């Protein structure tokens, strides 16, 4: 990648202070999104996908604290920016689509007004012209009869329509980076396909970088150029989509693919992933948080995990990754240790 990335996250670590102890939710998470690129953060619940997004957006729960790392958006480090600087960027340069549109929208404000609010605040649109532009936004996200729908409240709309409104709000100020946190959970597959098409089309039109968070590996594969696999607060693998599916290197990625219903012809071929996520409050967490579930563990796994080299195209945080294939030498696939 020669041009500067839209977002560069490095060494991001997040802790949550709870009554039961400190939860180390993220540990040295890093990835980059190029301009106009779509990447997917994939993992099971508790893997830290959403926490990553919240940390980048600066909307972590008060109990959560960023302990290390930086998230560079252009020249600005989002993690150490002043609230006023962050407020300038959020909504304008970087926008987010939340998981459940019905709860994320303001229930007592018509949806057209909610879009107009963003246009006025972040889109440099005069107050008088905002309502008309909001209607245009609704039309752009494919809502039929947008003038009437602009006056509707979220409860009067279906889940799919609410999600379209969320997209309109997120895209109102034409951000350069969009974070979509499980944008289609709870929607039907037919609606999911339409919404994902819409996000993809608008992102392509506006040259917007997209971080797409999902637990659905198949959906991620279909919609993104690169997949970042997370497990228990670590990035375990980061690779171009086709390569990840063809040659998963991390044992967890391989098991995740084998557990996806689409990968098998019948139920007997489907493999379960043994074990569970480690308790992230433990003080004796091993360097590799997958090691206790891992079928390929070695003595070397007690060493700190390999860190990605600056230009690694296929990063795997593992000391004993699966071989790529017969033609590749082991030397080529060893990731340079930091």
């Amino acid at each position, binding site marked *: 990648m020669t041009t500067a990335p839209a977002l560069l996250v490095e060494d991001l670590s997040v802790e949550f202070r709870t009554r039961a102890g400190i939860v180390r939710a993220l540990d040295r998470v890093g990835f980059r999104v190029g301009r106009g690129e779509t990447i997917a953060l994939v993992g099971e619940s508790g893997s830290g996908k959403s926490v990553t997004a919240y940390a980048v957006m600066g909307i972590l729960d008060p109990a959560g604290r960023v302990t290390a790392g930086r998230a560079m958006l252009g020249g600005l480090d989002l993690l150490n920016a002043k609230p006023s600087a962050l407020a300038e960027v959020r909504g304008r340069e970087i926008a987010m689509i939340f998981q459940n549109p019905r709860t994320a929208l303001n229930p007592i404000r018509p949806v057209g007004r909610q879009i107009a609010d963003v246009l006025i605040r972040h889109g440099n649109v005069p107050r008088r012209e905002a309502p008309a532009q909001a209607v245009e936004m609704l039309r752009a996200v494919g809502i039929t009869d947008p003038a009437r729908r602009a006056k509707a409240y979220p409860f009067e709309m279906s889940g799919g329509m609410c999600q379209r409104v969320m997209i309109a709000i997120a895209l109102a100020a034409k951000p350069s980076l969009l974070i979509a946190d499980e944008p289609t959970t709870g929607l039907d*597959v*037919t609606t999911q*396909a339409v919404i994902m098409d819409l996000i993809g089309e608008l992102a392509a039109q506006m040259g917007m970088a997209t971080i797409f968070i999902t637990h659905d590996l198949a959906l991620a594969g*279909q919609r993104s150029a690169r997949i970042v696999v997370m497990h228990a607060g670590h990035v375990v693998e980061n690779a171009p989509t086709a390569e990840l599916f063809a040659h998963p290197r991390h044992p967890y990625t391989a098991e995740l693919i084998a*557990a996806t*219903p689409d990968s098998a012809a019948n139920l007997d071929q489907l493999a379960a992933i043994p074990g569970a996520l480690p308790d992230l409050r433990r003080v004796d967490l091993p360097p590799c948080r997958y090691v206790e579930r891992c079928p390929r563990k070695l003595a070397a796994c007690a060493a700190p995990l390999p860190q990605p080299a600056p230009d690694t195209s296929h990063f795997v945080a593992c000391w004993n990754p699966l071989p790529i294939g017969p033609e590749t030498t082991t030397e080529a696939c060893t990731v340079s240790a930091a």
Partner: protein
Amino acid sequence: MTALLSIEHLAKLFPVGGGAGTIARLKRRLAGGAQTLPKVHAVDDVSFVIAKGETVGLVGESGCGKSSLVRTLTRLVDVSDGSIRLGNRELSLKPARVFARDRDRARIQMVFQDAGESVNPRFTAFDAIADPLRRLRKLRGGALRERVETVADQCGLPRQLLTRFPHQLSGGQRARVGIARAIAVEPDLLVLDEPTAALDVSVQVVILKLLQRLKRELGMSYLFVSHDLSVVRLLCDRVLVMYLGKIVESGPAAAVFEHPVHPYTQALVAAVPRLHGGDGARLRLSGEPRSPIDPDPQVCRFYGRCPRGEDSCKTAMPALRRFGDREAACHFAEGFLPQPKVVS
């Protein structure tokens, strides 16, 4: 195969607007107004059969009437019209309130979507599993404990977890509690309403395998409701596709997913994300579904969203027609049927 459950011309209508309660009805009568309220046709003239030992999948989008159909055939709500026969017994005539204490109540059991929400939060896992046994089997004391422990073992729920409350259990463990309490009374038919929707893929696999094992061991029939078609494909022998209260297609699961005949099924199958093969057929549905409130009986329910949609679709409702081992409700079904393969 012998039929376990056969459903004929089943309908479930819900009156809407103007208040459906007794007082509202009385007021309308006194005012001399119309007696008929507009009705949501949640389930409209649905017929199908579930054979002994068969797993039938029921798919369709939210609002298509899946849940109403399930609640009606498990007799949690009253039937508006049609018949439900379980073996030789007609179930549709008894009011739901009476059926709750019926001896056949135990023969149809249900596993709900998220046991974390469908199990009484003040019940321990033991109580949750014991409740149907107490009510329907009148088991008490040692016999009850023994039966609860047996089904917990069958469902792979460790006995030491039986004293826990739902919030102290993981998603997978809760799913096991939900399944255990349903099979405790040895039903013939188990209705599963998206049992794995709230679970991660790794846990989902374990639960699906558990369901398959239990079916083999106990010889139950399953009605598996889901909108995850890739799961339905793995678990089900036959599949029913529902759209706005009607069955629009049915057939062997593998055949339906490989060669969907009804345009709605085609769109549904095309929308399922695939691990390999990318975004092949870009068949998308535009617009919102038609209103289920007093729909025009002469217009195809899919008209307006259907990419085919011709004039005949708004003048005659297509009937569910049989083609070999499959059924489809579309005027143009013949054109969509898989052609005999020509070896080239």
